[in-house]
């Protein structure tokens, strides 16, 4: 209990809201790193994932690469790249972008694949071009899953930037790594609580975004659409949600 009081005292101490190590500065850095990671990973993974989902080509690669990446220990990857590339933001950024690609990629292609084949077939039969099918049918109908992939990637980035603070970087992990050698437990706890709070806020924001981007007709028709689905495709969908875009590291 004393630890808890000490932690809250640390969090409320006005001294921790000033200077380069101020809480708001560290939160800002963490958010900035995370957004940068998401942006760079999206530039690579979204077009690739959409291409795989739309054409069905390159899927084996799109599945296997994330599966292999998932087995990589982030801590090792971050440190290895730092030793190879040098200290600074670049090494961890490369590592984090690599790690953020699988969930975004998987969200995009499994999102597109979740769209009813009959709907896509009908859109083609009506005379939509490939691009029109993609933009007017496939993307709107899978936006929620695509956002889900971004959500996983964002949470992973928040978590991994915390670990990456083992390098001389900013962000909230700084508190934990600065406090570790001197056993400043309240500071470690305060840093941890801030990261957890940031992660939960991120998760909630993306959950909200997923609701917002779901087209109204899909929400309205969910019950009847679900009814039409066969059992095995339900199982398949369940599998997809878990297997494809679960982040490996927090």
């Amino acid at each position, binding site marked *: 209990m004393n630890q808890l009081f000490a932690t809250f005292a640390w969090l409320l101490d006005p001294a921790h809201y000033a200077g380069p190590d101020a809480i708001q500065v560290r939160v800002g850095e963490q958010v900035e790193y995370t957004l940068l990671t998401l942006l760079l990973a999206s530039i690579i993974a979204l077009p690739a994932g959409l291409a795989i989902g739309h054409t069905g080509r390159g899927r084996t690669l799109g599945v296997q690469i994330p599966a292999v990446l998932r087995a990589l220990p982030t801590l090792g990857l971050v440190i290895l790249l730092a030793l190879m590339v040098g200290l600074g933001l670049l090494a961890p950024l490369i590592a984090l972008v690599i790690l953020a690609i699988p969930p975004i990629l998987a969200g995009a292609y499994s999102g597109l694949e979740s769209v*009813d084949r*009959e*709907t896509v*077939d*009908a*859109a*083609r*039969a*009506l*005379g*939509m*071009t490939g691009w*029109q099918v993609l933009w*007017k*049918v496939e993307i*709107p*109908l899978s936006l929620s899953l695509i956002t889900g992939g971004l959500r996983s990637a964002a949470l992973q980035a928040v978590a991994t930037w915390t670990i990456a603070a083992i390098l001389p970087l900013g962000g909230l992990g700084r508190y934990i790594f600065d406090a570790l050698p001197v056993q400043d437990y309240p500071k470690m706890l305060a840093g941890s609580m801030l990261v957890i709070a940031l992660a939960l806020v991120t998760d909630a924001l993306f959950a909200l975004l997923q609701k917002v981007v779901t*087209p*109204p*007709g*899909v929400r*309205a*028709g*969910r*019950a*009847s*659409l679900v009814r*039409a689905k066969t059992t095995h495709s339900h199982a398949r969908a369940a599998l997809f949600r878990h297997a494809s875009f679960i982040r490996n590291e927090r």
Partner: protein
Amino acid sequence: MIEFRSVTKQFPDGTTAVDNVSLVFPSRKTTVLVGSSGSGKTTMLRMINRMVDPTSGSIEIDGERVSTLDPVKLRRSIGYVMQNSGLLPHRTVVDNIATVPVLRGIKKKEARQRSLRLMDTVGLERALAERYPGQLSGGQQQRVGVARGLAADPNILLMDEPFGAVDPIVRAELQTELVRLQRELDKTIVFVTHDIDEAFLIGDQIVIFRPGGIVAQIGSPADILANPVDAFVASFVGVDRGKRSLHLEGTPETPVVVDSEGRVAGVLAAGSNPLLIAEAVPQPGAGAPAQGAAT
């Protein structure tokens, strides 16, 4: 007029879906392709709007080879109605109907106006216009599907088992309405089904397929019932089981129509001449009074 000349379609896995079919679909008539699953009838349909391209042979619409036409433009000029309606779940009923006109560059407002009129044509209340497909019954969804197929006012309407997924009562309703609609609109309809009764009700020309995409017989419903070319067709249309060979029993005052297995199928309509009907029974065309009760 749509014409198939020695059309064959083989899929990459080696199965032959359509085997050397030559066939003419007359203009402004309804041609029904009927056969069990795997008989290539859907592939036939999809080759007309180039959703599938044939391995060999040629397909012409009014003398123009479809292989020379841009598939996207071709599809926009042909109406397509499919099983489970294939409606876009994220668009309202009017917007679904307006899809093709909007793709062809007609102003959205105008297209929506036209969609509303089409809703009247296919018997949908305008109150449903702003609903989403998921909020409609199966029968209503199919009506929207038909309206969407008609929206660009195409000459050709392709229908792929459009009533296959609705219950029998609604199906009967939709079938009769399609017959009524066709009387008004005079489209060239190609209709795919596995239900021979549906084929006889709707088709001017019936094409029966064997498994493996081979045409077994082409003809009017009456032709096929009267002269099935072989045992396969006879069995497919049900003449061999006596389902369609009816005879009269009972007293001359109150004759009862009975099938070959002794099941009572119905009574004669008031004013019918039992002698005339009895002769007509072995080949009941769509209008024969005894047939409605038997099917």
